[in-house]
């Protein structure tokens, strides 16, 4: 049974500056929380075929029954209609966001309407304040915005502060929402939806206790999960080097997209590896609330000012595998200070690092091929690894001084549709690719995953498993595996568990944990529910015009060999079709 707070959905209408709370026990009993709930709310709240920047586009945040109760259940799910793909938008982030929402007394928050003037929302338990954010609008840095709100509001230690940068204000379709300074609702343009509503930030704080039904088992099970989290080798890996631990193994495998995937091995991979960064730049590791792992790695970049001797500044930059791929190997760059400064600029402006990197990679190749010239770029010459120029391009993507930059602000797919070079625009379902050229399953995953993300069904992981086992991932096997994996991940992201802990929260542990909270689910029930939630997501996608037959496969992925050899379009399409047949 969902407890009395989890059942609460906070509705906020920015147009009328009103808020109210509705009891949605009906939803929480059936769909647990997180993505299960958010999908239902999206189907309820988002009118059909709406423009993503229409005030009626809802922003939905949801947490789950295990949030603030068990370790590593610390993610918040955001759902909305994506301005980047024009379809299902879903993004997850940690920090303190999930704990704060649950402790404020809510299972979900739905934000609709649009303000006429900039606002930020301060949600302190049952009180919601619509604060004037005119002073914050247009401010150069998201870091400054965070600091100002932090100093003006109570709740230090028990609050989340989600904010957008200028990229979100200016509706760059892959603008991010940043929370706790170093975590992101990165993908699919939630930041632009905030911007379209003149919503600069949301602060949530609260301290409600969360009742547990089976108190004795709770403490035992907590210890079991906690021990697994602090002792397991995989968690150790995330703690030690963080996700960048993947750079070298993927490069070794020949799966690290390099120079817009003209290559799948990067000769300078060592320079952007987790090992190299840890040794030379790692300044601090931090954690999401209620997670002992502390996978968040902050680099320190010490730079001299050139106008005065012995005058330095130190910048903190949060780095992960995906930004290192997207801004490192994908751009053929290995000058770490340059890379970190570019990443810092991306966070300052509030963009998604992955989409930005892959879009820059397309633009660099387009320039190399003469498809675009200095006329379009306003005199800038994009070259592999030239970070100073990339920084200027990023600022122009936000400013959008001409048609070309307006196009780049909509991502690689849109820019390529306007200027050409689609065959090397590495987007899937409109979303820029992540850093895995591992084999067919990865791409089938990007194409079929409900949000076209590697995290939907982790095809990249299946490719690697098959490679190790020296087996061929056939379309049949891929489709089987991905449907199963993506279905189960709906349960994890309904509870809402960090995917890093997916090997700890196995089905039997999930059932046990739910039982301590008063839910009676069997493993079979959960499997069924996972599939149902996934189908609901597809119900939304098809409603909004998704067509598997129209999915574009960029030629580039077929040209550059993967660990499983060169990929065949026919096989990928076959697996995609099988996926949708199996999902029926």
């Amino acid at each position: 049974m969902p407890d009395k707070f989890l059942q609460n959905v906070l509705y906020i209408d920015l147009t009328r500056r009103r808020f109210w709370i509705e009891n949605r026990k009906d939803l929480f009993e059936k769909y647990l929380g997180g993505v299960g709930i958010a999908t239902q709310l999206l189907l309820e709240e988002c009118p059909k075929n709406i423009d993503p920047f229409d005030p009626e586009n809802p922003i939905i945040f949801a947490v789950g029954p295990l949030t603030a109760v068990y370790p590593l259940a610390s993610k918040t799910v955001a759902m909305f209609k994506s301005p980047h793909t024009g379809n299902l938008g879903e993004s997850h982030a940690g920090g303190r966001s999930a704990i704060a929402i649950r402790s404020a007394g809510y299972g979900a928050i739905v934000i609709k309407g649009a303000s006429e003037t900039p606002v930020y929302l301060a949600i302190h338990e049952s009180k919601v304040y619509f604060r004037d954010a005119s002073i914050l609008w247009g401010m150069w840095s998201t870091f400054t915005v965070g600091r100002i709100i932090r100093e003006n509001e109570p709740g230090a230690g028990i609050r989340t502060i989600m904010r957008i940068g200028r990229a979100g204000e200016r509706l760059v379709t892959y603008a991010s929402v940043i929370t706790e300074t170093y975590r992101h609702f990165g993908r699919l343009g939630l930041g632009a939806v905030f911007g379209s509503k003149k919503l600069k930030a949301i602060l949530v704080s609260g301290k409600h206790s969360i009742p547990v039904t089976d108190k004795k088992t709770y403490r035992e099970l907590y210890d079991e999960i906690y021990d697994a989290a602090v002792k397991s080798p995989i968690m150790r890996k995330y703690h030690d080097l963080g996700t960048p631990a993947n750079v070298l193994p993927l490069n070794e495998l020949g799966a690290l997209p390099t120079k817009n995937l003209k290559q799948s091995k990067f000769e300078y991979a060592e320079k952007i590896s987790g090992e190299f960064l840890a040794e030379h730049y790692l300044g601090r590791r931090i954690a999401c609330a209620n997670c002992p792992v502390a996978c968040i790695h902050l680099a320190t970049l010490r730079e001299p000012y050139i106008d005065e001797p012995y005058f330095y500044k130190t910048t903190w930059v949060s780095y992960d595998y995906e930004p290192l791929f997207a801004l490192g190997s994908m751009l053929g760059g290995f000058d770490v200070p340059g890379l970190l400064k570019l990443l810092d600029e991306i966070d300052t402006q509030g963009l998604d690092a992955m989409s930005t990197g892959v879009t820059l990679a397309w633009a660099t190749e387009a320039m190399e091929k003469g498809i675009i010239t200095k006329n379009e770029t306003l005199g800038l010459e994009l070259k592999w690894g030239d970070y100073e120029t990339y920084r200027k391009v990023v600022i122009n993507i936000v400013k959008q001084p001409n048609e070309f930059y307006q196009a780049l602000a909509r991502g690689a797919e849109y820019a390529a549709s306007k200027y050409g070079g689609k065959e090397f625009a590495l987007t899937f379902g409109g979303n820029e690719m992540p850093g895995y050229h591992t084999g067919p399953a990865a791409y089938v995953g990007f194409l079929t995953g409900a949000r076209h993300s590697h995290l939907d069904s982790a095809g990249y992981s299946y490719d690697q498993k098959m490679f190790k086992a020296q087996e061929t991932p056939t379309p049949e096997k891929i489709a089987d595996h991905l449907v199963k994996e993506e279905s189960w991940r709906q349960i994890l992201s309904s509870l809402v568990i960090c995917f890093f802990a997916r090997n700890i929260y196995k089905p039997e542990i999930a059932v046990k944990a739910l039982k301590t909270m008063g839910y009676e689910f069997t493993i079979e029930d959960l499997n069924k529910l996972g599939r149902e939630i996934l189908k609901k997501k597809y119900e939304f996608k098809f409603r909004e015009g998704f067509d598997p037959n129209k999915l574009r496969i960029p030629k580039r992925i077929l040209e550059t060999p993967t660990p499983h050899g060169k990929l065949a379009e026919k096989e990928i399409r076959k697996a995609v079709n099988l996926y949708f047949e199996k999902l029926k």
Partner: protein
Amino acid sequence: MAKRLAVIDTERCVGCQMCMFACARRYSVGGLGKSAIHVKSAGGVERGFVVVVCRACPDPPCAKVCPTQAIVPRKNGGVLVKLDKCIGCKLCVEVCLIGAVIWDEETNKPRICTYCGYCANYCPHGVLKFQEIEEAT
């Protein structure tokens, strides 16, 4: 000798708040409403964290200001809290310079560390230690 919770090295703190959740879990509840220890950033997480917990003063001001003797000094340092006597005046909160009297909004009573050491078992990074109080010299 009495024991207390010592903050050994805040620089090792990653801000996971496992200690806070552990403290609340003594009452078999989730969330942070019952925690008597508090972790917050030192002005932005990149600057690290502040761990706030009763340091078991030998002459505790919170006990001195309590008008109902709900807070009484413990032998060898620290305090004992008798919630039945508390009238919720919050004088103890005001007088504690380090902010270690944490207000429980759900009961309208203070939460002060009981020196049980439970949270230290859940500090994965060596920040907290449950140890003997050194004699004041």
